[in-house]
C-alpha cells in the first residue's frame, strides 16, 4: 500500500502541488473560489489518505487481532504498521500509542482511568488533591477534569491569562504545588494561537511530582513534535486536524505509566482472562482499545502522517508562519479590527482570532462566507477565553499547508467588505 506522495524536491514549497491533492479546494462557494481558513477546526484530506483507506478496505480488510485467516493477518499487520508510523511521527515507541476516537476521548481516557485507580495507586485522586489546567483550554481539556474533580472530590485549579493572551505564570509555584496530581494544558491554544512554554510547565510539575498531559491537538499537525524532547507524561492529538480522517485520535503515554493505569472502557480486545464475575486486562496499548478499533481510520491517519512527513513539517511550519505574519500585518492596517491573542508570530501558531468593532462575529463569518471565505465564528469550544477577553465570540482564521498568500489577501479584502456592508467604521 504505497501511495503517491507529492514531489516537493523541485521547489522550496510547492503549495500549488499540495493543493492539487485536495479535491475540495477547487470548489466554489457562493460563486467564488473557496478560501478555506477553518483549519484549526478541521482540515481536508488529500487523495493519498482517501486512497490508502480505500485500498486497504478493498484488498485487506477484516477485523484485527483475533483471527488466523489471511485477511485478518493482513488487516492486523496494516493496523499495527499504522501504529508504528504514527508513533514514529511523534518520536514514540509503537506500544505506547493508543488509538482513540478523537483527542477528546484520549483525554477522558486518562481522566477516567485516574478516577478508577484505587487508593494507594499513583493515579488515585481524592479530597485534598488538585488537578491543574489553564484558562485557555479547549472544553475537551477542561470538562473531563471538571467531571473528574466532581467524581473524586479533588479540586480543580487553573493558570490565568495575561492581557496579551499568554499564560500568566507569576503564581505558577502556588497553583502547581505539592497537592497537584496532574497538570493538563494545551500546547497551542486553538482560539488565541498562543504556543505555551512546555519546558517551564513540565519542570514545575515534575518538581512537585505531578503528571503532565499535553493537549497537542493544535501542535502535532503544525510543527515537529517529539514526545521525548518535550518530557511530558501524556500527549494527545486528533486525526482530522492533520489531514487525516475523523473518528481517530491518539493518546501517547510513557510506557511505565500506561502499564500501571487501570482500564477505562471494558470490552473485547482489552482483556486477558474473562470470568463471569471479573476479568484481568491486556497490556497497553490493547488495554485501552476496547472493542473493534478504528481500523481503517488508523490506516488513514498513518497515510496522513506520511503525507505531512513527505511535504516536511519544517516547511509547513515556515509556510504557515509566513501566512500568519501576512495576516497579522494586514489586520493591523485595518481600523476597528482587534486581534484576540498574541499579535506577532513569536511563539504563536496560525490560528488568529479577531473582532470587528460594531459587527457581531456571527455576521462577520456569514458575510465572509458570502464572498467564499470560510472562517469559524463563536467561542471555539473555549468559552472561558471569550469571557476573559470580554467578547461574546470571535471570528478565527487559521491557515494550513494548502493555503496561499492570495487567500490571506482575500480574507483581508473580505474584512473590508464586511465593514462596508455593515457600515462599521
Amino acid at each position: 500500500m504505497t501511495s503517491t506522495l507529492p514531489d516537493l524536491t523541485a521547489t522550496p514549497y510547492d503549495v500549488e502541488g499540495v493543493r492539487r491533492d485536495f479535491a475540495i479546494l477547487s470548489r466554489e462557494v457562493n460563486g467564488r473560489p473557496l478560501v478555506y481558513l477553518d483549519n484549526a477546526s478541521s482540515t481536508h484530506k488529500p487523495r493519498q489518505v482517501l486512497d490508502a483507506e480505500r485500498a486497504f478496505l478493498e484488498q485487506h480488510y477484516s477485523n484485527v487481532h483475533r483471527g488466523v485467516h489471511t485477511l485478518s493477518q493482513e488487516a492486523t499487520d496494516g493496523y499495527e504498521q499504522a501504529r508504528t508510523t504514527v508513533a514514529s511521527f511523534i518520536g514514540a515507541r509503537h506500544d505506547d500509542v493508543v488509538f482513540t476516537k478523537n483527542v477528546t476521548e484520549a483525554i477522558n481516557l486518562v481522566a477516567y482511568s485516574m478516577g478508577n485507580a484505587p487508593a494507594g495507586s499513583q493515579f488515585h485522586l481524592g479530597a485534598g488533591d488538585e488537578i491543574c489546567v489553564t484558562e485557555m483550554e479547549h472544553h475537551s481539556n477542561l470538562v473531563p477534569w471538571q467531571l473528574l474533580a466532581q467524581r473524586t472530590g479533588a479540586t480543580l485549579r487553573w493558570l490565568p491569562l495575561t492581557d496579551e493572551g499568554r499564560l500568566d505564570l507569576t503564581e505558577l509555584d502556588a497553583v502547581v504545588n505539592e497537592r497537584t496530581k496532574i497538570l493538563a494544558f494545551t500546547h497551542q491554544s486553538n482560539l488565541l494561537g498562543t504556543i505555551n512554554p512546555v519546558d517551564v510547565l513540565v519542570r514545575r510539575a515534575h518538581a512537585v511530582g505531578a503528571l503532565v498531559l499535553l493537549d497537542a491537538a493544535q501542535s502535532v499537525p503544525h510543527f515537529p513534535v517529539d514526545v521525548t524532547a518535550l518530557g511530558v507524561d501524556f500527549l494527545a492529538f486528533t486525526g482530522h486536524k492533520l489531514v487525516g480522517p475523523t473518528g481517530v485520535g491518539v493518546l501517547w503515554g510513557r510506557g511505565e505509566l500506561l502499564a500501571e493505569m487501570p482500564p477505562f472502557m471494558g470490552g473485547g480486545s482489552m482483556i486477558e482472562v474473562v470470568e463471569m464475575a471479573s476479568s484481568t486486562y491486556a497490556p497497553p496499548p490493547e488495554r485501552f482499545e476496547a472493542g473493534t478499533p478504528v481500523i481503517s481510520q488508523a490506516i488513514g491517519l498513518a497515510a496522513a502522517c506520511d503525507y505531512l512527513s513527505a511535504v516536511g513539517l519544517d516547511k509547513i511550519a515556515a509556510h504557515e508562519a509566513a501566512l500568519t505574519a501576512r495576516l497579522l500585518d494586514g489586520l493591523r492596517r485595518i481600523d476597528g479590527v482587534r486581534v484576540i491573542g498574541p499579535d506577532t508570530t513569536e511563539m504563536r501558531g496560525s490560528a488568529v482570532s479577531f473582532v470587528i468593532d460594531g459587527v457581531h462575529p456571527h455576521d462577520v463569518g456569514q458575510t465572509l462566507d458570502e464572498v467564499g471565505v470560510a472562517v469559524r465564528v463563536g467561542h471555539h469550544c473555549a468559552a472561558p477565553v471569550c469571557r476573559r477577553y470580554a467578547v461574546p465570540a470571535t471570528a478565527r482564521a487559521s491557515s494550513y499547508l494548502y493555503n496561499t498568500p492570495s487567500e490571506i489577501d482575500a480574507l483581508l479584502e473580505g474584512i473590508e467588505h464586511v465593514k462596508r456592508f455593515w457600515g462599521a467604521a
Partner: protein
Amino acid sequence: MTEGSNESLYQEIILDHYRNPHHKGLRDPFDIEVHHVNPTCGDEVTVRVKVVDGQVQDVSYDGQGCSISQASTSVMTDLVIGRKIDDAMEKAEAFLTLMQSRGTLEPDEDVLEDGIAFAGVSRYPARVKCALLGWMAWKDATAQAVAHTAEEAS
C-alpha cells in the same frame, strides 16, 4: 445536502430591522421579565410582557447579539403586540416551523409579514437559534404571565 446559494441571508428587511429595531428598550408596565442566552454565541435578550384580558398589550426588550437575533426580535414585537395571545402563539408556531424547515418551506406572508425574510435562515442550522432567541424568550414570558394572571384571578 443544500449546496451553497447565492441568495444572501441578509435580506433588506432583516437589515432594516437590525439598524432600526422596533419597540426596543425596556418599558413599564409589565407582568413578567425574562432573560435568555444563546450559549453557543453569547447572544442575550431581556424581554418584558404585559398581558391584559388574553391579549398581548405590550412587549419590550433589550439585548445584544448578531443581526439575525436582533432583527427577528424586532419583527416578533410587530407580530405579537396588540394581538390575542392565541393568535400570537400561532404566529410563534408558524415562525418556529419555518425555522425548522431547512429551506424547504414557502412562508405565508399573511401570517408572518416581515418574518418571511427569515426563510433563508432556516438553511443555516447555526443561525436558527439566533432567529429564535427573542421568540423563545417571549413565549416563555407570556406563558408565565398567563399562569400568573390565572393565579391572581383564582
